[in-house]
């Protein structure tokens, strides 16, 4: 009796110790993040104003702004999402729902898993040869978005497969029992049910892509750019323009990198302010995706 009580006491002690260690680990992560944020805010807050957001880069730090960079980031991210989402979900659906167990499918699966771990600069080299040179897209928004699509695609596919796998088999069987064919089952039941999980994967992948600079530097986006891609919506017929897709661009991480590597002190303030803008866009994107995930999750009621 006495012995059991002692063992219990020791176990409780271990339990508390572990909880404390866990809390400490969490706090370390938070503290580092906090210090980083404070530092960046402290350095960059003074530069963060309307003029900064609406001006082009300049050789004079106090006149320089981040307009072409943040617009470029929005363009590239939106396009990457538009390309990577359908491609990734379709590929995952094929592998999970349609693909039979064959040598080829196994080979594809292993390769996708490996591709998720490939350093992004390798995708940059592929993008440079394939999109920029071979397909003649040059250093355009489209070439950048396609390259980033390559970076995020494996992550999107893997997380979508996980989400599809989490949908109970009974849902599919019930659908078949009611006379639905495979495509109807996948479209009406499985994908909607997996949507919250798919969205989480896409959020993670896009958050990775927004901070990427290595693959874009490789394709040649490390550039002084003082103009914007042509707006996709115009007031003249035919109201929609694809011209912007083929124009040159720069993105926030690259503009920040450019400023950090300059000798004048004013530019380090600019880069701090640029980091705040980048964080704000990343937060906004994540917020939007979480909002969408919630909405999809509400629709699923079993």
């Amino acid at each position: 009796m006495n012995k059991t009580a002692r063992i219990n006491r020791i176990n409780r002690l271990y339990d508390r110790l572990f909880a404390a260690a866990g809390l400490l680990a969490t706090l370390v992560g938070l503290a580092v993040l906090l210090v980083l944020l404070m530092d960046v805010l402290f350095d960059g807050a003074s530069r963060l104003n309307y003029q900064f957001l609406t001006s082009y880069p300049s050789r004079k730090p106090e006149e320089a702004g981040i307009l072409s960079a943040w617009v470029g980031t929005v363009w590239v991210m939106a396009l990457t999402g538009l390309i990577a989402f359908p491609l990734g979900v379709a590929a995952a659906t094929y592998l999970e729902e349609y693909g039979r167990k064959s040598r080829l499918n196994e080979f594809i699966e292993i390769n996708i898993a490996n591709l998720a771990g490939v350093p992004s600069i390798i995708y940059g080299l592929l993008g440079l040869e394939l999109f920029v040179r071979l397909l003649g897209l040059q250093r355009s928004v489209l070439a950048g978005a396609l390259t980033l699509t390559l970076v995020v695609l494996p992550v999107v596919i893997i997380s979508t497969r996980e989400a599809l796998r989490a949908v109970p088999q009974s849902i599919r069987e019930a659908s078949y029992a009611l006379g639905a064919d495979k495509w109807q089952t996948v479209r009406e039941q499985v994908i909607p049910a997996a949507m919250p999980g798919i969205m989480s994967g896409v959020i993670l992948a896009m958050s990775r892509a927004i901070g990427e600079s290595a693959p874009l530097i490789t394709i040649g986006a490390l550039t002084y750019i003082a103009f914007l891609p042509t707006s996709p919506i115009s007031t003249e017929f035919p109201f929609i323009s694809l011209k912007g897709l083929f124009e040159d661009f720069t993105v926030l991480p690259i503009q920040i990198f450019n400023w950090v590597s300059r000798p004048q002190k004013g530019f380090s303030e600019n880069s701090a302010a640029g980091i705040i803008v980048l964080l704000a866009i990343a937060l906004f994107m994540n917020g939007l995706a979480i909002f969408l995930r919630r909405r999809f999750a509400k629709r699923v009621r079993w």
Partner: protein
Amino acid sequence: MIKKISALVLAVFSALVIARAVYAGEIIRIDGSSTVYPITEAVAEEFQKAEKGKVNVTVGISGTGGGFKKFCAGETDITDASRPIKASEVEACKKNGIEYIELPVAYDGLAVMVHKKNNLVNHITVKELKTIWEPAAQGKIMKWSQIRPEWPEKEIHLYGPGVDSGTFDYFTEAVVGKAQSSRGDFTASEDDNVLVQGIATDPGSLGFFGVAYYEHNKDKLKLVPVDDGKDENGKGPVLPTYDNILKGLYQPLSRPIFIYVSKKSAIKPEVQRFTKFYMKNGANLVKEVGYIALPEKAYELGLKRFEKGMTGSVFGGHGVQVGVKIEDLLKKEGQ
């Protein structure tokens, strides 16, 4: 099935390529040396203001060598270069039918620097620099005392630009005698700020990079005057000051820097306007961003070469040329 898919893929991509060609607007693409970048960026900024946004200019940084690669592939209109074009690049341009007009835009000095509190190193000779940097020094010359007996028996740590930069090409050619020939055990970075930090915080440091960067970090570094042992270039050690570089006394560590304009692009009116703007307003902007402007005459000669469409390099396509003074440059340009 596979045939259908590949036909579809092919159709999509050919549509993209056609669309790309149709939508190509008035844009001037420039790439190349990070040393020339600040000048070209300043010119591009002012030019776009003057044109009120009618012409777009992009300026990239991929190093002199990387810039020539793109230039000779016909991907850029103008390339920035911190050394004259070299034989392999001449060959590459020829293969693709790219002719070029060479225009010198400024002078640049390479500063040699040590830690701020280094009291013993007050000047250095080119010969000593060679002892330090030549390939044979690797793993052997590790202490200051091995270079000059009165220097302390402490470790020496070296800092320099990355091997892809024209600055590294020039320094090795000027000091060691052969471009790219250097010891490998030094801290190399394409980012000059990393070098500034390294030299400023390491008491045993010695490093080099462009004078413009030194000017912005004066308070953190100690500049070392260099003696080339030739009295005609000024007796004794010489500092890379504005006057010394202009008079050709800071040798062999000062050099002209260039832009190369593709002859194919020079037909386009926007490229013509840009190049003329560069030659007419370059001098002021060069000074503003911390480089040494050429005499008025050099820009006039450049403009003349451009208007006449004179192609080729006055340096014969041999890459780095050491000891080119401003008057030599003028003479060559004038021919």
